[in-house]
């Protein structure tokens, strides 16, 4: 018989190995035992996704593998969701607003960033692709975002990232929020030049950096 620890470990492995059906079976068995469903996402599924991110960084996994891992993870999360009790404690979850800047509809990098942010515990509001600069500010204000993540794959639309930052400054919101930029043409130097807080070369590293930056901001 599988113990709780066995199940959590197997869930992580099933996510890492892109086995959606296994994930669902394991989740069913886990729920049938009456174990804490929230733990299954954070200590099971998300662990697998994190490992997938590590394999991506080390060059063993590529984007197709990451997409299938995340499919498996979300299948599990969807199954577990009804079994997760409404939050009893008021533990603060950090919020992020992400989107692809206006003029660009390539959202693969943004989607991966979103997945990895959720994996490290953010609540993520996804504005989608081709997002006008003002929408980032409006949404960030509405949800009191801790983080704004701006993505682009095209050199032609990079300037829209600096426009978002300028508008945050103009509306005196810049101090309240961590801004991360990412995407194919973006470099650490570009991020520094336009006054972003952070940049990382891939989604997994970026999500960990995001968490650190947000924690750092709140420790002040």
């Amino acid at each position, binding site marked *: 018989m599988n113990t709780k620890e066995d199940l959590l470990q197997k869930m992580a492995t099933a996510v890492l190995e*892109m086995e959606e059906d296994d994930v669902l079976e394991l989740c069913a068995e886990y729920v049938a035992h009456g174990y804490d469903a929230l733990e299954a996402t954070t200590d099971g599924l998300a662990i697998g996704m994190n490992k997938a991110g590590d394999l991506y960084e080390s060059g063993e*996994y*590529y*984007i*197709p*593998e990451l*997409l*299938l891992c995340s*499919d498996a993870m979300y299948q599990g999360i969807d199954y577990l969701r009804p079994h997760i009790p409404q939050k009893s404690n008021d533990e603060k979850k950090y919020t992020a607003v992400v989107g692809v800047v206006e*003029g*660009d*509809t*390539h959202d*693969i990098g943004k*989607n991966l960033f979103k997945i990895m942010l959720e994996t490290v515990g953010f609540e993520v509001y996804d504005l989608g692709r*081709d997002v006008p600069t003002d929408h980032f500010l409006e949404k960030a204000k509405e949800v009191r975002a801790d983080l704004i993540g701006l993505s682009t794959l*095209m*050199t*032609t*639309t*990079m*300037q829209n990232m600096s426009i978002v930052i300028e508008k945050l400054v103009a509306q005196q919101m810049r101090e309240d929020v961590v801004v991360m930029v990412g995407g*194919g*043409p*973006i*470099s650490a*130097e*570009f991020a520094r*030049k336009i006054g972003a807080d952070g940049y990382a070369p891939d989604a997994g590293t970026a999500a960990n950096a995001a968490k650190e930056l947000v924690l750092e901001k709140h420790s002040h």
Partner: protein
Amino acid sequence: MGRIFKDQMTPMERAAALANCKDVDRLPCNPNVANGVSRVYGCKVSDFNRSARTLADAQIASYRRFGYDSVRIFTDLFPWAEAMGATLTLPEDSTADLLEPALKTKEDILNYQKIPVINPYKDGRLPIYLEAMKYLVDEIGSEVGCTAALVGPFTNACFLVGVEKILRMCLREPEVVHHLCQISLESLIAYADAAIDIGLGPTISEPMSSCTVISPAIFKTFSEPYLKQLVHHIQKRGKGVVMHICGKTAPIWNDIADMGIAGFSIDNVASILDCKHTIGHKTKILGNVDPATTMYMGTPNAVKLETLQCIKDGYDSPKGFVPMSGCSLPIETPFANIDAMLDTVAELGYPVDPQKLDSMIEDAKQLCAKE
């Protein structure tokens, strides 16, 4: 303002002299001005979707303004997918983008075999490009090499069904991916033939084959077989092919060079030095000044420094080296930065004198440090 160091030869004269080991004024150089030609000519980017004359005139105006060594009919990555049923956003004054792939629903995907091979003389914007090519050949074809941009079959297949979907399909439904690559190959061959008939040599951009996106194993299974056929077809028609792949490419350099391409253009995240050591004896290397941070956002001195550093890494590559940007330039790249790249190459001259190169690098470093 404009170029400071004037060229002594036309690009054609330079290429011929280099090929015959005769004296030349400078290395060939290609800053890779894409839709930025609209800024030189004074038109909207979307004019290129409608008027072959404007597309050709803008290309000619930009070539005359900067004096670079290759002119290319390229507006975006999507005209072939568009001709096969994908829909695009065509913004008034920026680069076209994929709105929806040709196969949208599950049912579409089940009927994937219905996607037609294109007719380059009829479908989408392709006839406009072919007409523009004729103007280029007639008007500047005797002084500068004119090329027709193509994407590779795998990249085109991505736009037929959507990038994320096809990446999943590579692992889950390989036969669909193979079919989409095959019809993409046939379509791209039809277009390449039309361009070659006009007198242009094709170039191939294959961004989705980057190791930043797919593994070398997926590249070898789904991209390479079709890409190789496209290259070989073009070679059989008597034309060399320069290929560009964005992002990381080192793990597939040998596979690409072994296709027998005339040149490989690398992204700024790849290393010219490593590329030279790996495939420099097999093919010419082109690259790789950062198009965003340096060309678009940097100063002319920063452009000068990075161009010189690229040359230092690449100039002694056995099959030749061409200073180039690591990818197409952003539309609003300052003219002064494009001039700076070409002026740097002209000031250095040819054959490259390593001492002069080092002293120019030192000077550029000092100028950059003061900025």
